[in-house]
């Protein structure tokens, strides 16, 4: 798949974009491509979304395709179920991931299990987009990162890009997926990352991680905004002659076990970095995957650097809550010196 992506990038014209521009571009591409694609959410029409992810799309595609809804998370997800079952491909925007809680029941009791309950007669091919994560000095609740609530939920895929290229490709793959996908957009990276994004339609396969840096001594596994934190720690470690393999997981359910196994079996060491709370976090599933497939290759215990088991704090303290490259660096050293 990685090779296919490169070929695509080489043969197709690209444009330098921020992550959020790539999302807008991906939404526009699919609205253009497929009549069944509909966007619904709060403030996504005229306002273009509070982060401008849908900017200009209502103007281009009309109010019937890009719909401002009432402030109604459960209503948005619930009506999307009806729309999806009845022939459309709704893309529902949650204004912030931390506002998804009123819709949790709909997602847990209907979105994720309708295919199973009807033995495939009714399916819910919808995408739920949600900006998530701390580090942008947002008010309380806005910065939550509760992806584990959804990776634990049977019947929904969870995707989280960390580059503009992947954001568009994964978004299109999520829209094309016959099953529901929760698409997490790292707020902190919306405008702070830029890279080359192919024009038109292309897909990045769901369930496949990406090696963002090659190394021999330790495997760092991260997603979303934490990829950059891991990269920074890796660069710091490199100055001391410790080289790191850095994996951007990109999909949190189902996790790419192959990319993890390949790397940790070579390095024998792993540090997992996520900003969500440590207990019950996705990091624990990665530990299990390493345990299942690579136990005998390990030279040291696996380290987890995660958000603390406390509510994401008011932003005056968020820099202490969020994993830092210093903490990751410390963990790298710990695994090497074990």
């Amino acid at each position: 798949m990685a090779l296919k992506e490169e070929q695509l990038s080489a043969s197709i014209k690209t444009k330098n974009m921020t992550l959020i521009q790539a999302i807008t571009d991906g939404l526009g591409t699919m609205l253009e491509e497929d009549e069944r694609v509909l966007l619904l959410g709060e403030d996504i029409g005229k306002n273009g979304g509070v982060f401008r992810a849908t900017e200009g799309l209502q103007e281009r595609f009309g109010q019937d395709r890009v719909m401002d809804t009432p402030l109604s998370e459960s209503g948005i997800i619930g009506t999307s179920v009806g729309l999806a079952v009845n022939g459309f491909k709704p893309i529902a925007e949650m204004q912030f991931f931390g506002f998804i809680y009123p819709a949790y029941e709909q997602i847990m009791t209907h979105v994720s299990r309708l295919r199973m309950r009807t033995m495939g007669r009714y399916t819910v091919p919808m995408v739920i987009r949600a900006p998530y994560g701390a580090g942008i000095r947002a008010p309380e609740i806005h910065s939550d990162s509760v992806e584990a609530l959804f990776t634990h939920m049977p019947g929904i895929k969870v995707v989280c890009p960390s580059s503009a290229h992947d954001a568009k490709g994964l978004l299109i793959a999520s829209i094309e997926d016959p099953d529901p996908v929760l698409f997490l957009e790292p707020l902190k990276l919306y405008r702070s990352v830029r890279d080359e994004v192919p024009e038109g339609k292309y897909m990045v396969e769901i369930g496949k991680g990406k090696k963002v840096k090659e190394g021999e001594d330790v495997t760092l596994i991260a997603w979303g905004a934490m990829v950059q934190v891991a990269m920074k720690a890796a660069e710091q470690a490199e100055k001391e002659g410790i080289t790191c393999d850095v994996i951007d997981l990109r999909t949190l359910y189902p996790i790419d076990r192959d990319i993890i196994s390949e790397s940790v079996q070579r390095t024998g060491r792993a540090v997992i970095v996520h900003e969500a709370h440590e207990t019950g976090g996705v990091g624990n599933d990665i530990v299990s995957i390493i345990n299942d497939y690579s136990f005998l290759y390990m030279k040291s215990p696996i380290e987890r650097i995660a958000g603390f088991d406390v509510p994401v704090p008011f932003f005056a303290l968020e820099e202490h809550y969020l994993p830092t490259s210093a903490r990751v660096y410390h963990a790298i050293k710990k695994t090497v010196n074990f």
Partner: protein
Amino acid sequence: MTIEFPIYQMMNENGQLVREGDKERLTDELVREFYYHMVRIRTFDRKAISLQRQGRLGTYAPFEGQEAAQAGSALALGNEDWVFPTYRDHGATLTFGANMARTFLYWNGRVEGCVPEEGKRIFPPAVPIATQLPHAAGAAWAEKRKGTKNAAIAYFGDGATSEGDFHEGMNMASVFKVPAVFFNQNNGFAISVPIEKQMNSETVAQKSVAYGIPGVRVDGNDIFAVYFQTKEALGRARKGEGPTLIEAVTWRYGAHTTADDPTKYRNQSKSDEIRQTRDPLMRLERYMKNEGIWDEGWTTQIQNQITEEVEQAIREVESYPKPKVDDLFDYVFETPTWTIAKQKEEYFQLLGGEA
């Protein structure tokens, strides 16, 4: 608000029409159809309870007493309409065309019971309360966008009106003016909690005011009233006039489920009184006798036919092949994720079967 939302009735408890002129709307054929469907679903319901008592069915949610509300509203629907039932609306779904054996299967813990007949747009029963209202709004919205004349109906009880999704579904439907009918069966209790403790408003129908949509309060034991009011609401929906909230005031004789004991929280003798006066079947029987369209031969014939249908459905259920263990794993995603595939494979190895 009971003044603004009076109970709409066409036929009183003695089986007489309350207004001149309604007679022409009621052909003998239609009246017989009403009677047939109510007898059919009552027979089903009683059989289900008896099977549960014999240990041949799991816990079951009865609806006896609500036949007019369920059959009357379902008969008003068009073949292409959508039905979003709760776990107590199998009377409505059976009338709409759900398969009887499958309906029994549902209560026997088989997922096959959720799969609608080919061509019938029936959602699996909503087990959480009120969550099906937004689904109906969404499916109706899709019909509107497609430019069809189809509508969606969502069934729910009085307890559902206290849930957030009652509001979210009705609000979305009214804001986007979708062709949906919200059909409430108010039987006065949400398990043990009486309506006075459920809400401070006198009627459910008045809640329509908040959404700027028509609200109708009907005698839910009067199948004529239920049928024609639902037809009217569907007519408005098909004309692009948006949703309607219907409150069918009814009474269920039995328990919330076969696992529940209503004598602990309500006066059951009131229930017996209601059966004598307001029962939907007795009332229609009185009407048919008053109008001279009662025919013992015909009623015996349909009762026999229905009994045979029910027995046949039970035979089908009891000889149904055992569920395949594959079904546990194969329907979660279109293509199982590696985790599910691995869990399935390892479990089948343990079972010693073929994976």
